[in-house]
């Protein structure tokens, strides 16, 4: 791979694909994303390509600029420039059902190698050259396999680590707790060791402690803002905004700007809720995006839904889990990160217990739609089957069955992909959505 060129963000949007933003906070996200990529070129700091794994704080503490190829793939899809990368990856034999984030990420590295320069159509100047790549097993297998394959195209050291979650059946056992916490801690320490070795400098633990505690505050604000918005009638913060506003929590966690962002988001939502300010004039139907990544290539579809008088008041894909109360006696910042994660697993088990589903929703989906139907006054649930994402697709039918067993609201499956536009059929989506509106209308008329 040749040396990178100074980026110029000249990529024009070929067509508007993104959704209208309803909050001032959501409008800020695009700038934050652009900054992430530009800073990787301009700050002169070491760059890492990282798979999102709730460990951004470690990179911040080590003064490494993390770049997230998952995010970059979503950005490419939004700009409708992802498919040349996809084609390139598939030309090397990667399956067209392998994660489209991965196909874009691999295709990007392959084309960079082929062309000797960053592909000129890469949005925001592309991803800067890394000195390391870091993947993990959190959420899905692709997250540690994909980066292993980068060695086809670039000679960059790779570190992968585990982040397993306990099953609900044994989550309360002290020995199981100790076993999971010890393992997760060892795996995080392994990552720190790798970073230290790669950079030739030691972790500043005091600095990390400050960053982790800032991250904890950020997480609580994120959670509170999202829940406040979901409960609100009318809802000032629909799912398409929420699909934007997870970005700082995933990719800037631990930084002051992330904390400021969620404080601003919370304040904005609180103000609007207090003043009964919604998004659309009348929420004829309140919808829940109940699973699956969004169609980054066509987020505008959310505006189509709104034109029909419906609003996605919540999405349970990028869901902050109920935060843990981390005691002050835990002073090791790595332990605080691991403890918090384990406690949120317990919180999830507790939530399932309340629904009588203890031990039955361990690994499906990312959030249980049943948790939100009553509380958020939901009239219908939409889920998204993704051709190339097992992590957020498997379990949707199960969740739908649970919804049908326990509620009377309709559920709709839409099918496409998060990035690969070839799997999207707009007419089909609109037809299915229209049928959903008719069903909800009939239910309202029948008074159910």
């Amino acid at each position, binding site marked *: 791979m040749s040396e990178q060129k100074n980026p110029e963000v000249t990529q024009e949007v070929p067509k508007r694909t993104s959704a209208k933003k309803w909050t001032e906070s959501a409008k800020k996200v695009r700038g934050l994303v652009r900054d992430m990529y530009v800073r990787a070129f301009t700050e002169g700091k070491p760059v890492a390509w990282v798979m999102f794994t709730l460990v951004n704080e470690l990179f911040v503490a080590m003064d490494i600029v993390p770049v997230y190829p998952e995010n970059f793939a979503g950005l490419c899809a939004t700009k409708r420039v992802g498919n040349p990368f996809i084609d390139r990856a598939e030309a090397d034999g990667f399956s067209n059902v392998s994660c489209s984030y991965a196909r874009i990420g691999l295709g990007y590295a392959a084309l960079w190698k082929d062309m000797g320069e960053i592909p000129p159509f890469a949005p925001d100047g592309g991803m800067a050259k890394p000195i390391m790549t870091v993947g993990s097993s959190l959420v899905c297998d692709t997250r540690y396999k994909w980066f292993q394959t980068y060695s086809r195209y670039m000679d960059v050291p790779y570190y992968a680590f585990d982040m397993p979650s306990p099953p609900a059946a044994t989550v309360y056992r002290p020995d199981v707790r100790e076993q999971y916490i010890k393992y997760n801690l060892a795996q995080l320490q392994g990552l720190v060791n790798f970073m230290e070795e790669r950079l030739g400098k030691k972790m500043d633990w005091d600095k990390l402690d400050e960053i982790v505690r800032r991250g904890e505050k950020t997480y609580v604000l994120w959670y509170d803002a999202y829940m406040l918005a979901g409960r609100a009638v009318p809802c000032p913060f629909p799912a398409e905004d929420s699909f934007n506003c997870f970005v700082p929590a995933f990719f800037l966690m631990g930084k002051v700007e992330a904390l400021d962002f969620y404080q601003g988001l919370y304040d904005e939502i609180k103000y609007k809720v207090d003043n009964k300010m919604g998004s659309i004039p009348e929420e004829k139907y309140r919808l829940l995006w109940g699973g699956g990544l969004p169609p980054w290539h066509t987020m505008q579809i959310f505006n189509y839904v709104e034109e029909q008088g419906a609003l996605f008041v919540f999405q349970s894909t990028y869901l902050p889990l109920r935060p843990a109360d981390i005691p002050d006696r835990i002073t090791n910042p790595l332990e605080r990160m691991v403890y918090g994660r384990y406690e949120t697993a317990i919180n999830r088990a507790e939530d399932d217990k309340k629904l009588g589903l203890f031990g*039955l929703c361990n690994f499906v989906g990312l959030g249980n739609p049943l948790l939100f139907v009553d509380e958020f006054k939901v009239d219908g649930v939409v889920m998204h089957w993704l051709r190339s994402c097992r992590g957020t697709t498997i379990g949707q039918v199960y969740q739908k069955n649970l919804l049908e067993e326990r509620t009377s609201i309709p559920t709709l499956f839409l099918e496409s992909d998060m990035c690969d536009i070839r799997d999207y059929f707009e007419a089909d989506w609109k037809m299915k959505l229209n049928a959903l509106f008719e069903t909800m209308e009939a239910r309202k008329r029948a008074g159910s």
Partner: protein
Amino acid sequence: MAKGLDWAKRLYENRSQRAKELREEGNKVIGYICAFPPRELITAAGLVPYRITGTLEPITEADAYLETLMCPYVRSCLDLGIKKRYDFLDGMIWPHTCDNIQKTFDIWKHYVPHSYFHYLDVPHMPDPSSFEFFTKELDVLKESLEEFGGVKITEECLKEAIGVHNENRALLRQLTGLRKQAPPPISGTEMTQVMMAAMSIPVYESNEMLKNIIEEVSTGKDGPQEKTARLLVYGCEIDDIAFINLVEECGANVVIDDLCMGTRDYWKDVATEGDPLKNLADRILGEIMCPRTFRRSPGTRQQDLDNRFSYIRDFAQEFNVNGTILYIIRYCDTFEFDAPEVRDYLEEAGIPVLYLEDDYSLTSIQGFKTRIQAFLEMIE
């Protein structure tokens, strides 16, 4: 009573028959999916291990419970579960091996009830902390099986079970070793039947059957005709003879495999000295060469590839193979990511490769036939 290969064939055609008989006699049968659960612990608890599989018959029930955009093998297994074909199982051990299997845990548990259910977390990483974690996981499984079986699994009894299962693996390796001959005395199709049969009965009976088969094929049984093409088949779950049979009918001898229901399952033994749980962890996490387990790179890209794939090349050389078929089931993500790497690695080693991607049900078998025939013409 049938003997040798005929014994295996009959079991293959009615896999659950013996397990059902044993259950009627008062034994408890524990099902498991994939190569990762430790059969040794099940045997040591006085229970009968039974490996569940899918089937090539159409999936007619599982689509009401699982998405179609996922591993068709796992969908097929659940389909059989929903259809009550696994009702003879008293319990199920469900490992976290890949996304498709892990995320089906809840669904199986909800819709295919057994009186015993255990989730076994298997780390993806190969670090000392991973082995320590997994040894503890095996200890939790051991306690759980003790409670269910109403027995205490002593170290002595676990070591004995390890010994018997090691013997089983050694017999399978011995039988596989015979396939180095030209022509091989046992076909790939027969070997698939043997593997399926061996996973369906108690290990003691399996050992008896394998000894019987080795004797039969070593002493003059009419084996397959010698073909110019000697092939290795690489992939994940092949639990039906249809594909291997197709390859052989096209004019090849399938002489070695790297499959989940093949050498991947039996090529390495459990060590017999020291802590048996740790030894089990070492074999499962360290020795089963499945792409779901990450291997740390020892240095350069070439060293990384050698570390991950040289054993396949070695198989090819030892068994005098002149071609390899990669049979990849769609949506099997870890194999899908490795497949281009395996293809390139073997081709660079001078071994021609045919890369097929399928949906497990072999609905495109005629299309495969043409491609396999063309491949065989190319390498002959």
